[in-house]
């Protein structure tokens, strides 16, 4: 498939936004049960949620560049019964609204307990909105992943690993950003978010490498014989019906050699997994906010390469009809 920049940006940016929100809420729940110190509502949670919202909005803007007719984008919420894309279109604004509400509650400090759970746990409005936001974040990961995993012809994508990778990679980058954000604010939470980020990054490494191995062993169901229905081991295309290319040659091919594929794979395997872990560890030891920010920046650049490779790696069966120009 052709890796479109708009979709690469959309999926990576909203992944960071969702992950950061999950990180903030995890932090709030941990402080609720007094495992980590309580943070200032406005400075940490409101600003953090604003950063998360900024990533979600940036992703939404990027997604519009993928559309041929962006002015009609509102129509895409109508077929949620059958289309995962439609479901994503619905869940993304819900998620954004919840993150916005969460930020507003913390900004104005409306965190007086509404009621108290047994065990002296005061529940305020931000915790309830945050729980809904967490659900929305997971629903969004599921929708985004299923957009790709539900196309059974694209066998590289048609696997539960696709959804798991989207979730873990988004979560890892979000927790890394949370570590960087708390380091930037000078809070003593780099260790907490950093450890979560490392755990998620390692888990993502396991599942992403699993999908690499799976795709390397993949046997494609379609071949030229089933594509044109001629049972012969040697079939060569002599003409594809057009000399100057077509939508079919532009949308479904990445037009890069195996060298570029190997380079991108190596790049993301290094930039997404070991380097951010090393930078987070050194940030934790050295208390440097720059190292934590660098960990996020490096991981995000790596995720761009990861997403590029994800698209370029998928072999669409229609490509069987477009092997030779003439």
């Amino acid at each position: 498939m052709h890796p479109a920049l708009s979709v690469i940006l959309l999926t990576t940016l909203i992944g960071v936004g969702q992950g950061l929100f999950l990180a903030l809420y995890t932090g709030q729940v941990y402080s609720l049960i007094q495992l980590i110190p309580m943070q200032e509502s406005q400075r940490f949670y409101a600003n953090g949620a604003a950063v998360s919202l900024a990533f979600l909005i940036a992703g939404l803007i990027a997604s519009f560049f993928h559309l041929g007719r962006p002015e009609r984008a509102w129509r895409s919420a109508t077929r949620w019964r059958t289309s995962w894309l439609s479901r994503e279109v619905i869940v993304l604004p819900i998620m954004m609204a919840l993150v916005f509400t969460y930020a507003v509650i913390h900004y104005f400090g409306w965190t007086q307990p509404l009621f108290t759970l047994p065990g002296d746990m005061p529940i305020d409005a931000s915790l309830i909105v945050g729980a809904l936001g967490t659900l929305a974040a997971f629903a969004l990961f599921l929708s985004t992943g299923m957009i790709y995993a539900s196309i059974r012809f694209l066998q590289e994508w048609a696997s539960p690993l696709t959804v798991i990778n989207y979730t873990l990679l988004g979560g890892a980058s979000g927790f890394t950003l949370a570590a960087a954000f708390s380091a930037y604010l000078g809070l003593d939470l780099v260790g907490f978010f950093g450890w979560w980020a490392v755990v998620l990054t390692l888990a993502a490494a396991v599942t992403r490498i699993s999908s690499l191995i799976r795709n390397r062993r993949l046997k494609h169901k379609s071949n030229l014989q089933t594509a044109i229905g001629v049972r012969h081991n040697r079939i060569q295309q002599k003409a594809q019906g057009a000399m100057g290319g077509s939508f079919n040659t532009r949308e479904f091919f990445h037009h890069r050699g195996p060298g570029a594929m190997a380079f991108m794979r190596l790049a993301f395997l290094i930039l997404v997994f070991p380097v951010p872990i090393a930078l987070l560890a050194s940030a934790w030891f050295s208390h440097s906010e720059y190292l934590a920010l660098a960990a996020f920046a490096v991981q995000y650049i790596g995720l761009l390469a990861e997403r590029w490779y994800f698209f370029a790696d998928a072999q669409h069966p229609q490509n069987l009809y477009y092997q030779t120009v003439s």
Partner: protein
Amino acid sequence: MSQLALVIDLNVCVGCHACVTSCKEWNTNGWAGPMTDQNPYGESPSGTFFNRVQTFEIGQYPNTETVHFPKSCLHCEEPPCVPVCPTGASYKRKEDGIVLVDYDKCIGCKYCSWACPYGARELDAEQKVMKKCTLCVDRIYDEKLPERERRPACVLACPTNARLFGDVHDPDSTVSVAIREQGGYALMPEWGTKPANHYLPRRKTRITLHKDELERVDNPLKKEGLAKADDSRQTLDDTTSW
């Protein structure tokens, strides 16, 4: 419920592209148009087509065979492109099974083209909406046309009658009989899309002759021992007319 479809006979297709040009001519002016072109007279022309003819070479020289392969939307009975559409612009008509795109609803997200294993959908580079074969829905029901012309433009244009058009759910239609009796097959059956369009394979007419069919068993000269294994001699068959 009827299911309109094309049956394409690869045995007689000569790869002349008349269906391609006729399709473009009709549809670019009609309900489904325009089908825009980019750089049409330049170095690398590109454009929207509902139908393309491709060519494949089967086998290795000198035992090769050229197959011309017209390729358009197969109007699947289980179209995978329809449920993925987020706007409902892509739909399958209940009454005749034609898969269509509502250009006014399409947002150009290209998701349906990803969900089609055949590459039958093309995004119009200028209009930015998804386009595909309509089975000439604007002419097959047009009562202003004489009845014999109420068929897709490609079918009318084909000089070798390689394209048949009809209802594949009607067991007695020309297309159903052709599929049944001449080995019609569907493309990529492994995906369960149940394409309505079918292809008829290349067919060879061969006759197998055995030696005893070449030699008269009841040659009367044999009785008299006159017929010998000498093939150069005249036989009774050569001289008499019986």
